[in-house]
Protein backbone atom coordinates (compact mmCIF):
# COMPACT_ATOMS: atom_id res chain seq x y z
CA UNK A 1 0.00 0.00 0.00
CA UNK A 2 1.20 3.44 -0.80
CA UNK A 3 2.44 5.89 1.74
CA UNK A 4 -0.15 8.62 1.84
CA UNK A 5 0.51 12.34 2.16
CA UNK A 6 -1.15 14.65 4.67
CA UNK A 7 -4.17 15.04 2.38
CA UNK A 8 -4.78 11.28 2.18
CA UNK A 9 -6.76 10.39 -0.91
CA UNK A 10 -8.47 13.76 -1.17
CA UNK A 11 -7.32 15.91 -4.03
CA UNK A 12 -8.95 18.94 -2.55
CA UNK A 13 -6.38 20.68 -0.37
CA UNK A 14 -4.74 22.39 -3.34
CA UNK A 15 -2.59 25.40 -2.54
CA UNK A 16 -4.94 28.07 -3.88
CA UNK A 17 -7.57 27.01 -1.33
CA UNK A 18 -5.18 28.32 1.29
CA UNK A 19 -4.72 31.53 -0.68
CA UNK A 20 -1.30 30.52 -2.00
CA UNK A 21 -0.54 31.62 -5.54
CA UNK A 22 2.45 31.51 -7.85
CA UNK A 23 5.38 33.67 -6.64
CA UNK A 24 5.96 37.19 -7.99
CA UNK A 25 8.77 37.82 -10.48
CA UNK A 26 12.23 37.46 -8.98
CA UNK A 27 10.98 35.42 -6.04
CA UNK A 28 10.39 31.77 -5.20
CA UNK A 29 7.77 29.92 -3.18
CA UNK A 30 8.78 27.60 -0.36
CA UNK A 31 5.68 25.89 1.07
CA UNK A 32 3.58 28.93 2.04
CA UNK A 33 6.37 31.51 2.04
CA UNK A 34 7.62 33.85 -0.67
CA UNK A 35 11.42 33.71 -0.45
CA UNK A 36 14.52 34.75 -2.38
CA UNK A 37 15.48 32.38 -5.19
CA UNK A 38 18.71 31.40 -3.51
CA UNK A 39 16.90 30.35 -0.33
CA UNK A 40 14.64 28.07 -2.37
CA UNK A 41 17.57 26.72 -4.38
CA UNK A 42 19.43 25.77 -1.22
CA UNK A 43 16.38 24.07 0.25
CA UNK A 44 15.68 22.13 -2.94
CA UNK A 45 19.30 20.98 -3.04
CA UNK A 46 19.22 20.01 0.65
CA UNK A 47 16.02 18.00 0.31
CA UNK A 48 17.17 16.26 -2.85
CA UNK A 49 20.52 15.35 -1.29
CA UNK A 50 19.00 14.00 1.92
CA UNK A 51 15.92 12.16 0.66
CA UNK A 52 15.51 8.57 -0.47
CA UNK A 53 15.46 7.96 -4.21
CA UNK A 54 15.61 11.63 -5.20
CA UNK A 55 14.54 11.89 -8.83
CA UNK A 56 14.41 14.52 -11.55
CA UNK A 57 11.39 14.38 -13.88
CA UNK A 58 12.37 16.11 -17.14
CA UNK A 59 9.47 16.98 -19.46
CA UNK A 60 9.11 17.38 -23.23
CA UNK A 61 10.45 20.92 -23.28
CA UNK A 62 13.90 19.66 -22.28
CA UNK A 63 13.75 16.14 -23.68
CA UNK A 64 13.48 17.17 -27.33
CA UNK A 65 16.08 19.35 -29.04
CA UNK A 66 13.51 21.80 -30.38
CA UNK A 67 15.65 24.88 -29.78
CA UNK A 68 19.11 25.80 -28.55
CA UNK A 69 17.86 26.61 -25.05
CA UNK A 70 16.38 23.11 -24.74
CA UNK A 71 19.72 21.56 -25.69
CA UNK A 72 21.57 23.68 -23.13
CA UNK A 73 19.04 22.84 -20.43
CA UNK A 74 19.19 19.11 -21.18
CA UNK A 75 22.96 19.10 -20.74
CA UNK A 76 22.67 21.04 -17.49
CA UNK A 77 19.98 18.73 -16.14
CA UNK A 78 22.27 15.74 -16.60
CA UNK A 79 24.89 17.61 -14.63
CA UNK A 80 22.30 18.54 -12.02
CA UNK A 81 21.36 14.87 -11.59
CA UNK A 82 24.98 13.96 -10.99
CA UNK A 83 25.48 16.72 -8.43
CA UNK A 84 22.27 15.80 -6.58
CA UNK A 85 22.94 12.04 -6.73
CA UNK A 86 19.50 11.87 -8.34
CA UNK A 87 17.90 9.47 -10.80
CA UNK A 88 16.06 10.72 -13.88
CA UNK A 89 12.66 9.46 -15.00
CA UNK A 90 11.26 11.27 -18.06
CA UNK A 91 7.76 12.59 -18.69
CA UNK A 92 8.04 12.36 -22.43
CA UNK A 93 4.41 12.93 -23.29
CA UNK A 94 1.10 13.70 -21.63
CA UNK A 95 -1.21 10.83 -22.59
CA UNK A 96 -2.66 8.72 -19.79
CA UNK A 97 -0.95 5.33 -20.09
CA UNK A 98 -3.42 2.47 -20.45
CA UNK A 99 -3.66 -0.33 -19.56
CA UNK A 100 -0.65 0.22 -17.34
CA UNK A 101 2.26 2.62 -17.09
CA UNK A 102 5.78 1.24 -16.90
CA UNK A 103 6.57 3.04 -13.67
CA UNK A 104 10.20 1.95 -13.77
CA UNK A 105 10.97 4.12 -16.76
CA UNK A 106 8.42 6.90 -17.11
CA UNK A 107 6.12 9.28 -15.28
CA UNK A 108 2.85 10.71 -16.56
CA UNK A 109 0.93 13.81 -15.46
CA UNK A 110 -2.36 11.94 -15.20
CA UNK A 111 -1.11 9.37 -12.69
CA UNK A 112 2.31 10.53 -11.49
CA UNK A 113 1.74 8.92 -8.08
CA UNK A 114 2.16 5.45 -9.62
CA UNK A 115 5.76 6.19 -10.57
CA UNK A 116 6.46 7.82 -7.21
CA UNK A 117 4.93 4.92 -5.29
CA UNK A 118 6.65 2.26 -7.38
CA UNK A 119 10.10 3.80 -7.02
CA UNK A 120 9.58 4.98 -3.42
CA UNK A 121 10.62 8.51 -4.43
CA UNK A 122 10.78 10.91 -1.48
CA UNK A 123 11.94 14.04 -3.32
CA UNK A 124 11.70 15.16 -6.91
CA UNK A 125 12.19 18.04 -9.31
CA UNK A 126 9.79 18.75 -12.19
CA UNK A 127 11.52 20.56 -15.03
CA UNK A 128 10.55 21.13 -18.66
CA UNK A 129 6.95 20.05 -18.16
CA UNK A 130 4.31 22.33 -19.71
CA UNK A 131 2.68 24.26 -16.86
CA UNK A 132 -0.82 22.80 -17.13
CA UNK A 133 0.48 19.25 -16.93
CA UNK A 134 2.92 20.13 -14.17
CA UNK A 135 0.03 21.65 -12.23
CA UNK A 136 -2.26 18.61 -12.49
CA UNK A 137 0.64 16.26 -11.72
CA UNK A 138 1.73 18.30 -8.70
CA UNK A 139 -1.82 18.34 -7.34
CA UNK A 140 -1.99 14.55 -7.55
CA UNK A 141 1.44 14.06 -6.05
CA UNK A 142 0.58 16.46 -3.24
CA UNK A 143 -2.62 14.59 -2.50
CA UNK A 144 -1.43 11.04 -2.97
CA UNK A 145 2.17 10.79 -1.80
CA UNK A 146 4.64 12.00 0.79
CA UNK A 147 7.12 13.04 -1.88
CA UNK A 148 8.67 16.51 -1.54
CA UNK A 149 8.05 18.24 -4.88
CA UNK A 150 10.12 21.00 -6.44
CA UNK A 151 9.30 22.78 -9.69
CA UNK A 152 11.90 24.63 -11.71
CA UNK A 153 9.72 26.50 -14.15
CA UNK A 154 10.70 28.58 -17.18
CA UNK A 155 7.51 30.62 -16.79
CA UNK A 156 5.53 31.62 -13.68
CA UNK A 157 5.98 28.70 -11.26
CA UNK A 158 3.66 26.25 -9.51
CA UNK A 159 2.04 26.82 -6.14
CA UNK A 160 1.23 23.12 -5.68
CA UNK A 161 4.92 22.26 -5.55
CA UNK A 162 6.46 22.45 -2.11
CA UNK A 163 9.25 24.54 -3.58
CA UNK A 164 8.97 26.43 -6.85
CA UNK A 165 11.33 28.73 -8.66
CA UNK A 166 10.09 30.67 -11.69
CA UNK A 167 11.67 32.09 -14.87
CA UNK A 168 14.38 29.43 -14.80
CA UNK A 169 16.50 29.52 -17.91
CA UNK A 170 19.80 27.81 -18.63
CA UNK A 171 21.87 30.42 -16.79
CA UNK A 172 19.66 29.94 -13.73
CA UNK A 173 20.11 26.17 -13.89
CA UNK A 174 23.86 26.70 -13.95
CA UNK A 175 23.51 28.87 -10.85
CA UNK A 176 21.40 26.17 -9.16
CA UNK A 177 24.04 23.56 -9.91
CA UNK A 178 26.63 25.77 -8.25
CA UNK A 179 24.39 26.21 -5.19
CA UNK A 180 23.78 22.44 -5.10
CA UNK A 181 27.52 21.77 -5.16
CA UNK A 182 27.98 24.07 -2.16
CA UNK A 183 25.14 22.44 -0.23
CA UNK A 184 26.52 19.00 -1.07
CA UNK A 185 29.89 19.99 0.31
CA UNK A 186 28.30 21.38 3.47
CA UNK A 187 26.37 18.15 3.97
CA UNK A 188 29.42 16.02 3.25
CA UNK A 189 27.46 14.01 0.65
Amino acid at each position, binding site marked *: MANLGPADYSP*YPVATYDGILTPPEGKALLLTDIVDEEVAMREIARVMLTSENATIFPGPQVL*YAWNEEAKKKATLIKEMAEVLNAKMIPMY*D*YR*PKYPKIDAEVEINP*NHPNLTIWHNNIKACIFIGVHCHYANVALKIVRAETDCYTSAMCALSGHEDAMATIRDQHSEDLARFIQVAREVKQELGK
Partner: protein
Amino acid sequence: MSLNKTLVSMEYLLKEAPREKHFITGAQAMAEAVKRASVDMAIAYPITPQSEVMHLVGDIYAQGHIKEYYRAEEELGTMSAIAGAARAGVRLFTATSGPGLLRGLEAIVSWPGHRVPCVLGVLTRVVNAPLSIQPDNIEMAYLLHSGVVLLHAENQQDTFDMTLAAFAITEKVDVYIPVAVATEGFFVTHAKGYVDMTSEELAFNEPDPYAAPVPAMDNEVPPARIQRDAPVQKSNFMSYLIHSVWQQEIWDSNKRAMKYIYQYLGGPIEVQNPDADVFVLASGCAAAQAREAHRYAQEEELSVGFIKVRAIRPFPKEEIRAALKNAKKVIIPEHNIIGWLATEVKAAIPNSGIVVDGPRVYGGMTLPVELIMEQVYMALGMKSETLQA
Protein backbone atom coordinates in the same frame (compact mmCIF):
# COMPACT_ATOMS: atom_id res chain seq x y z
CA MET B 1 1.39 43.01 -38.78
CA SER B 2 0.91 44.35 -42.29
CA LEU B 3 -0.26 47.81 -41.18
CA ASN B 4 3.11 48.72 -39.61
CA LYS B 5 1.72 49.19 -36.15
CA THR B 6 3.96 49.73 -33.18
CA LEU B 7 3.65 46.73 -30.90
CA VAL B 8 3.59 47.50 -27.19
CA SER B 9 2.88 45.81 -23.87
CA MET B 10 -0.64 45.78 -22.47
CA GLU B 11 0.68 47.64 -19.45
CA TYR B 12 1.72 50.51 -21.74
CA LEU B 13 -1.36 50.32 -23.88
CA LEU B 14 -3.78 50.53 -20.97
CA LYS B 15 -1.92 52.75 -18.55
CA GLU B 16 0.57 54.95 -20.37
CA ALA B 17 -0.28 55.36 -24.05
CA PRO B 18 -1.81 58.75 -24.95
CA ARG B 19 -5.57 58.68 -25.46
CA GLU B 20 -8.10 60.71 -27.41
CA LYS B 21 -11.75 61.12 -26.57
CA HIS B 22 -14.28 59.64 -29.01
CA PHE B 23 -18.07 59.53 -28.89
CA ILE B 24 -18.91 55.97 -29.93
CA THR B 25 -21.23 53.04 -29.25
CA GLY B 26 -20.33 50.08 -27.02
CA ALA B 27 -20.17 47.88 -30.13
CA GLN B 28 -17.66 50.30 -31.66
CA ALA B 29 -15.69 50.36 -28.42
CA MET B 30 -15.38 46.56 -28.42
CA ALA B 31 -14.37 46.47 -32.09
CA GLU B 32 -11.85 49.29 -31.54
CA ALA B 33 -10.27 47.25 -28.74
CA VAL B 34 -10.08 44.24 -31.06
CA LYS B 35 -8.41 46.48 -33.64
CA ARG B 36 -5.61 47.24 -31.14
CA ALA B 37 -5.16 43.67 -29.90
CA SER B 38 -3.20 42.08 -32.80
CA VAL B 39 -5.94 39.48 -33.19
CA ASP B 40 -5.03 36.63 -35.51
CA MET B 41 -8.49 35.29 -36.09
CA ALA B 42 -12.12 36.14 -35.41
CA ILE B 43 -14.95 33.66 -35.87
CA ALA B 44 -18.62 34.34 -35.19
CA TYR B 45 -22.21 33.69 -36.12
CA PRO B 46 -24.45 36.76 -36.21
CA ILE B 47 -27.13 37.39 -33.62
CA THR B 48 -28.69 40.62 -32.41
CA PRO B 49 -27.31 42.62 -30.61
CA GLN B 50 -23.85 41.05 -31.08
CA SER B 51 -24.07 41.43 -34.87
CA GLU B 52 -23.14 45.10 -34.61
CA VAL B 53 -19.83 44.16 -32.97
CA MET B 54 -18.96 41.39 -35.40
CA HIS B 55 -19.99 43.51 -38.38
CA LEU B 56 -17.47 46.11 -37.25
CA VAL B 57 -14.88 43.38 -36.62
CA GLY B 58 -15.52 42.27 -40.20
CA ASP B 59 -14.75 45.80 -41.32
CA ILE B 60 -11.47 45.90 -39.46
CA TYR B 61 -10.58 42.50 -40.90
CA ALA B 62 -11.15 43.99 -44.36
CA GLN B 63 -8.86 46.87 -43.37
CA GLY B 64 -6.10 44.39 -42.47
CA HIS B 65 -6.16 44.60 -38.68
CA ILE B 66 -7.08 40.91 -38.33
CA LYS B 67 -5.49 38.06 -40.29
CA GLU B 68 -8.46 35.70 -40.60
CA TYR B 69 -12.21 36.07 -40.13
CA TYR B 70 -15.13 33.91 -41.04
CA ARG B 71 -18.77 33.33 -40.27
CA ALA B 72 -19.27 29.89 -38.79
CA GLU B 73 -22.35 27.72 -39.40
CA GLU B 74 -23.89 28.50 -35.99
CA GLU B 75 -22.68 29.12 -32.45
CA LEU B 76 -21.70 25.57 -31.47
CA GLY B 77 -19.64 25.50 -34.65
CA THR B 78 -18.23 28.94 -33.83
CA MET B 79 -17.13 28.04 -30.35
CA SER B 80 -15.76 24.67 -31.47
CA ALA B 81 -13.76 26.38 -34.21
CA ILE B 82 -12.34 28.77 -31.62
CA ALA B 83 -11.18 25.74 -29.60
CA GLY B 84 -9.57 24.26 -32.70
CA ALA B 85 -7.83 27.48 -33.70
CA ALA B 86 -6.51 27.93 -30.15
CA ARG B 87 -4.57 24.71 -30.51
CA ALA B 88 -2.53 26.36 -33.22
CA GLY B 89 -1.49 29.02 -30.71
CA VAL B 90 -3.21 32.03 -32.31
CA ARG B 91 -4.98 35.00 -30.70
CA LEU B 92 -8.75 34.74 -31.00
CA PHE B 93 -11.88 36.80 -30.65
CA THR B 94 -15.54 35.93 -30.88
CA ALA B 95 -18.77 37.41 -29.56
CA THR B 96 -22.35 36.34 -29.15
CA SER B 97 -25.62 37.17 -27.43
CA GLY B 98 -28.32 35.41 -25.40
CA PRO B 99 -29.58 32.36 -27.31
CA GLY B 100 -26.34 32.26 -29.28
CA LEU B 101 -24.35 32.00 -26.07
CA LEU B 102 -26.52 29.15 -24.88
CA ARG B 103 -26.23 27.32 -28.19
CA GLY B 104 -22.45 27.60 -27.96
CA LEU B 105 -22.32 26.75 -24.28
CA GLU B 106 -21.33 23.10 -24.67
CA ALA B 107 -18.15 24.16 -26.42
CA ILE B 108 -17.62 27.18 -24.17
CA VAL B 109 -17.62 25.13 -20.97
CA SER B 110 -15.00 22.86 -22.51
CA TRP B 111 -12.65 25.78 -23.30
CA PRO B 112 -11.09 26.20 -19.85
CA GLY B 113 -10.28 22.50 -19.48
CA HIS B 114 -8.72 22.50 -22.93
CA ARG B 115 -6.78 25.62 -21.91
CA VAL B 116 -8.17 27.72 -24.73
CA PRO B 117 -7.08 31.35 -24.47
CA CYS B 118 -9.55 33.62 -26.25
CA VAL B 119 -11.73 36.67 -25.69
CA LEU B 120 -15.48 36.22 -25.80
CA GLY B 121 -17.73 39.26 -26.10
CA VAL B 122 -21.11 38.70 -24.45
CA LEU B 123 -23.61 41.33 -25.56
CA THR B 124 -26.54 40.36 -23.44
CA ARG B 125 -30.15 39.77 -24.47
CA VAL B 126 -33.05 37.71 -23.19
CA VAL B 127 -32.83 33.96 -23.66
CA ASN B 128 -36.25 32.55 -22.89
CA ALA B 129 -39.46 32.41 -24.93
CA PRO B 130 -41.25 34.35 -26.22
CA LEU B 131 -38.60 35.42 -28.67
CA SER B 132 -37.19 38.85 -28.01
CA ILE B 133 -33.98 40.69 -28.71
CA GLN B 134 -34.17 42.97 -25.69
CA PRO B 135 -31.40 43.47 -23.13
CA ASP B 136 -31.38 41.32 -20.01
CA ASN B 137 -28.27 39.71 -18.53
CA ILE B 138 -29.69 36.41 -17.30
CA GLU B 139 -27.39 34.61 -19.75
CA MET B 140 -24.42 35.59 -17.59
CA ALA B 141 -25.74 33.24 -14.90
CA TYR B 142 -25.00 30.34 -17.24
CA LEU B 143 -21.36 31.41 -17.48
CA LEU B 144 -20.78 31.62 -13.73
CA HIS B 145 -19.87 27.95 -13.39
CA SER B 146 -18.22 27.47 -16.75
CA GLY B 147 -14.69 28.23 -15.54
CA VAL B 148 -14.22 31.27 -17.80
CA VAL B 149 -13.05 34.57 -16.38
CA LEU B 150 -16.03 36.93 -16.58
CA LEU B 151 -15.81 40.72 -16.61
CA HIS B 152 -18.87 42.99 -16.69
CA ALA B 153 -18.59 46.37 -18.41
CA GLU B 154 -20.60 49.31 -17.11
CA ASN B 155 -20.31 51.48 -20.20
CA GLN B 156 -18.52 52.06 -23.48
CA GLN B 157 -15.22 52.99 -21.79
CA ASP B 158 -15.23 49.80 -19.73
CA THR B 159 -16.04 47.82 -22.85
CA PHE B 160 -12.93 49.21 -24.56
CA ASP B 161 -10.58 48.79 -21.58
CA MET B 162 -11.87 45.40 -20.42
CA THR B 163 -11.76 43.92 -23.91
CA LEU B 164 -8.16 45.03 -24.34
CA ALA B 165 -7.16 43.79 -20.88
CA ALA B 166 -8.91 40.49 -21.58
CA PHE B 167 -6.46 39.72 -24.39
CA ALA B 168 -3.55 40.02 -21.96
CA ILE B 169 -5.20 38.18 -19.08
CA THR B 170 -6.30 35.18 -21.16
CA GLU B 171 -2.73 34.56 -22.38
CA LYS B 172 -1.02 34.68 -18.99
CA VAL B 173 0.59 31.29 -18.55
CA ASP B 174 -0.89 30.82 -15.09
CA VAL B 175 -4.37 31.75 -16.36
CA TYR B 176 -4.68 30.60 -20.00
CA ILE B 177 -8.43 30.17 -19.89
CA PRO B 178 -10.95 32.28 -21.81
CA VAL B 179 -11.93 35.74 -20.67
CA ALA B 180 -15.49 36.86 -21.38
CA VAL B 181 -16.34 40.55 -21.45
CA ALA B 182 -20.04 41.07 -20.97
CA THR B 183 -22.08 44.19 -21.35
CA GLU B 184 -25.74 44.93 -21.89
CA GLY B 185 -27.06 44.72 -25.41
CA PHE B 186 -28.54 47.97 -26.76
CA PHE B 187 -28.12 49.90 -23.49
CA VAL B 188 -24.37 49.84 -24.08
CA THR B 189 -23.81 48.23 -27.50
CA HIS B 190 -26.09 50.56 -29.41
CA ALA B 191 -25.79 53.69 -27.28
CA LYS B 192 -23.00 56.21 -27.58
CA GLY B 193 -20.72 57.34 -24.79
CA TYR B 194 -17.35 59.01 -24.46
CA VAL B 195 -14.42 56.65 -24.75
CA ASP B 196 -10.78 57.65 -24.27
CA MET B 197 -8.97 55.50 -26.81
CA THR B 198 -5.35 54.88 -27.66
CA SER B 199 -4.09 55.45 -31.19
CA GLU B 200 -4.82 52.63 -33.62
CA GLU B 201 -1.16 52.84 -34.63
CA LEU B 202 -0.42 51.06 -31.36
CA ALA B 203 -1.22 47.39 -30.91
CA PHE B 204 -0.70 44.73 -28.27
CA ASN B 205 2.41 42.55 -28.65
CA GLU B 206 1.78 39.45 -30.71
CA PRO B 207 1.22 36.19 -28.80
CA ASP B 208 4.04 33.78 -28.05
CA PRO B 209 2.49 30.32 -28.45
CA TYR B 210 5.48 28.74 -26.74
CA ALA B 211 4.91 30.74 -23.54
CA ALA B 212 1.90 28.56 -22.87
CA PRO B 213 0.96 25.93 -20.30
CA VAL B 214 0.11 23.47 -23.07
CA PRO B 215 1.93 22.74 -26.32
CA ALA B 216 0.56 24.30 -29.47
CA MET B 217 -0.38 21.76 -32.12
CA ASP B 218 2.48 22.46 -34.48
CA ASN B 219 2.92 18.96 -35.79
CA GLU B 220 6.19 19.72 -37.50
CA VAL B 221 8.07 20.96 -34.48
CA PRO B 222 8.73 18.83 -31.41
CA PRO B 223 7.81 18.74 -28.61
CA ALA B 224 4.36 19.26 -29.98
CA ARG B 225 3.76 15.83 -31.46
CA ILE B 226 1.84 15.11 -28.32
CA GLN B 227 -1.78 14.24 -27.73
CA ARG B 228 -2.86 17.12 -25.55
CA ASP B 229 -6.12 16.38 -23.87
CA ALA B 230 -6.53 12.65 -24.05
CA PRO B 231 -9.85 11.37 -22.70
CA VAL B 232 -9.72 9.95 -19.21
CA GLN B 233 -12.77 7.75 -19.49
CA LYS B 234 -11.67 4.59 -17.72
CA SER B 235 -13.91 3.77 -14.78
CA ASN B 236 -11.30 3.61 -12.08
CA PHE B 237 -10.18 5.77 -9.22
CA MET B 238 -7.21 7.06 -11.15
CA SER B 239 -9.46 8.46 -13.87
CA TYR B 240 -11.69 10.16 -11.34
CA LEU B 241 -8.64 11.68 -9.70
CA ILE B 242 -7.30 12.99 -13.00
CA HIS B 243 -10.57 14.69 -13.77
CA SER B 244 -10.95 16.15 -10.30
CA VAL B 245 -7.51 17.75 -10.30
CA TRP B 246 -8.06 18.96 -13.87
CA GLN B 247 -11.20 20.76 -12.67
CA GLN B 248 -9.28 22.15 -9.73
CA GLU B 249 -6.64 23.46 -12.09
CA ILE B 250 -9.29 25.31 -14.13
CA TRP B 251 -10.59 27.06 -11.03
CA ASP B 252 -7.08 27.71 -9.75
CA SER B 253 -6.40 29.40 -13.08
CA ASN B 254 -9.57 31.41 -12.61
CA LYS B 255 -8.33 32.53 -9.18
CA ARG B 256 -4.93 33.43 -10.56
CA ALA B 257 -6.61 35.83 -12.98
CA MET B 258 -7.40 38.12 -10.06
CA LYS B 259 -3.88 39.51 -9.80
CA TYR B 260 -4.07 40.56 -13.45
CA ILE B 261 -7.48 42.16 -12.90
CA TYR B 262 -5.73 44.29 -10.30
CA GLN B 263 -2.81 44.94 -12.64
CA TYR B 264 -4.76 46.00 -15.70
CA LEU B 265 -8.14 47.17 -14.42
CA GLY B 266 -7.31 48.53 -10.97
CA GLY B 267 -9.07 45.70 -9.16
CA PRO B 268 -12.32 43.76 -9.26
CA ILE B 269 -14.44 46.37 -7.47
CA GLU B 270 -14.74 50.14 -7.21
CA VAL B 271 -15.90 51.59 -3.89
CA GLN B 272 -17.16 55.09 -3.21
CA ASN B 273 -18.03 56.49 0.20
CA PRO B 274 -16.69 53.43 2.04
CA ASP B 275 -17.95 54.52 5.48
CA ALA B 276 -21.62 54.68 4.44
CA ASP B 277 -24.43 52.84 6.24
CA VAL B 278 -26.22 51.76 3.08
CA PHE B 279 -24.55 50.61 -0.15
CA VAL B 280 -25.81 50.22 -3.67
CA LEU B 281 -23.83 47.39 -5.28
CA ALA B 282 -24.14 46.56 -8.97
CA SER B 283 -22.34 45.39 -12.08
CA GLY B 284 -22.57 46.22 -15.76
CA CYS B 285 -25.19 48.64 -16.94
CA ALA B 286 -26.97 48.51 -13.57
CA ALA B 287 -23.80 49.97 -12.06
CA ALA B 288 -24.30 53.10 -14.18
CA GLN B 289 -27.76 53.55 -12.68
CA ALA B 290 -26.47 52.68 -9.21
CA ARG B 291 -23.73 55.29 -9.66
CA GLU B 292 -26.40 57.83 -10.50
CA ALA B 293 -28.42 56.82 -7.44
CA HIS B 294 -25.29 57.32 -5.37
CA ARG B 295 -24.96 60.83 -6.82
CA TYR B 296 -28.58 61.61 -5.93
CA ALA B 297 -27.92 60.33 -2.40
CA GLN B 298 -24.80 62.48 -2.09
CA GLU B 299 -26.84 65.53 -3.08
CA GLU B 300 -29.37 64.66 -0.38
CA GLU B 301 -26.50 64.09 2.09
CA LEU B 302 -27.57 60.51 2.76
CA SER B 303 -25.14 57.93 4.11
CA VAL B 304 -25.02 55.89 0.92
CA GLY B 305 -22.01 54.22 -0.67
CA PHE B 306 -21.48 52.68 -4.09
CA ILE B 307 -19.79 49.45 -5.10
CA LYS B 308 -19.27 48.49 -8.70
CA VAL B 309 -18.30 44.87 -9.36
CA ARG B 310 -16.07 44.58 -12.42
CA ALA B 311 -15.10 40.93 -12.09
CA ILE B 312 -17.86 38.34 -11.76
CA ARG B 313 -15.41 35.43 -12.11
CA PRO B 314 -13.19 35.27 -10.22
CA PHE B 315 -15.74 36.70 -7.80
CA PRO B 316 -14.18 39.23 -5.41
CA LYS B 317 -15.47 37.68 -2.20
CA GLU B 318 -12.82 39.07 0.08
CA GLU B 319 -13.00 42.56 -1.39
CA ILE B 320 -16.80 42.69 -1.10
CA ARG B 321 -16.71 41.24 2.40
CA ALA B 322 -14.26 43.96 3.43
CA ALA B 323 -16.21 46.73 1.70
CA LEU B 324 -19.47 45.71 3.38
CA LYS B 325 -17.95 45.01 6.79
CA ASN B 326 -19.86 47.80 8.53
CA ALA B 327 -22.78 48.15 6.12
CA LYS B 328 -26.31 48.02 7.49
CA LYS B 329 -27.95 47.35 4.12
CA VAL B 330 -26.76 46.63 0.60
CA ILE B 331 -29.14 47.21 -2.30
CA ILE B 332 -28.41 45.16 -5.42
CA PRO B 333 -30.15 46.36 -8.59
CA GLU B 334 -29.95 43.95 -11.53
CA HIS B 335 -31.02 43.50 -15.14
CA ASN B 336 -32.34 39.95 -14.71
CA ILE B 337 -35.15 38.14 -12.92
CA ILE B 338 -33.14 35.68 -10.85
CA GLY B 339 -30.74 38.08 -9.13
CA TRP B 340 -27.54 36.15 -9.71
CA LEU B 341 -25.40 38.99 -8.36
CA ALA B 342 -27.43 39.19 -5.14
CA THR B 343 -26.99 35.44 -4.70
CA GLU B 344 -23.24 35.77 -5.18
CA VAL B 345 -23.00 38.59 -2.65
CA LYS B 346 -25.12 36.72 -0.09
CA ALA B 347 -22.78 33.75 -0.39
CA ALA B 348 -19.73 35.98 0.03
CA ILE B 349 -20.64 37.86 3.22
CA PRO B 350 -21.31 36.50 6.71
CA ASN B 351 -24.38 38.67 7.30
CA SER B 352 -26.46 38.00 4.19
CA GLY B 353 -29.53 39.41 5.88
CA ILE B 354 -28.35 42.92 4.96
CA VAL B 355 -28.89 42.20 1.24
CA VAL B 356 -31.87 43.89 -0.36
CA ASP B 357 -32.86 41.75 -3.37
CA GLY B 358 -33.36 44.22 -6.12
CA PRO B 359 -34.73 46.27 -7.64
CA ARG B 360 -34.67 43.99 -10.68
CA VAL B 361 -35.81 44.70 -14.21
CA TYR B 362 -35.86 42.22 -17.07
CA GLY B 363 -37.22 41.48 -20.50
CA GLY B 364 -35.69 44.68 -21.86
CA MET B 365 -36.94 47.12 -19.23
CA THR B 366 -34.83 50.09 -18.26
CA LEU B 367 -33.74 50.59 -14.67
CA PRO B 368 -34.85 54.03 -13.49
CA VAL B 369 -32.69 55.57 -10.78
CA GLU B 370 -35.89 56.29 -8.86
CA LEU B 371 -36.42 52.55 -8.32
CA ILE B 372 -33.05 52.33 -6.64
CA MET B 373 -33.68 55.49 -4.61
CA GLU B 374 -36.91 54.02 -3.23
CA GLN B 375 -34.90 51.13 -1.83
CA VAL B 376 -32.35 53.57 -0.47
CA TYR B 377 -35.05 55.54 1.38
CA MET B 378 -36.54 52.32 2.78
CA ALA B 379 -33.13 51.08 3.89
CA LEU B 380 -32.54 54.36 5.70
CA GLY B 381 -35.98 54.24 7.31
CA MET B 382 -37.21 57.21 5.30
CA LYS B 383 -40.47 57.70 3.45
CA SER B 384 -40.50 58.08 -0.31
CA GLU B 385 -43.16 59.90 -2.29
CA THR B 386 -43.60 56.94 -4.62
CA LEU B 387 -44.01 54.49 -1.79
CA GLN B 388 -46.50 56.77 -0.07
CA ALA B 389 -48.50 57.00 -3.28
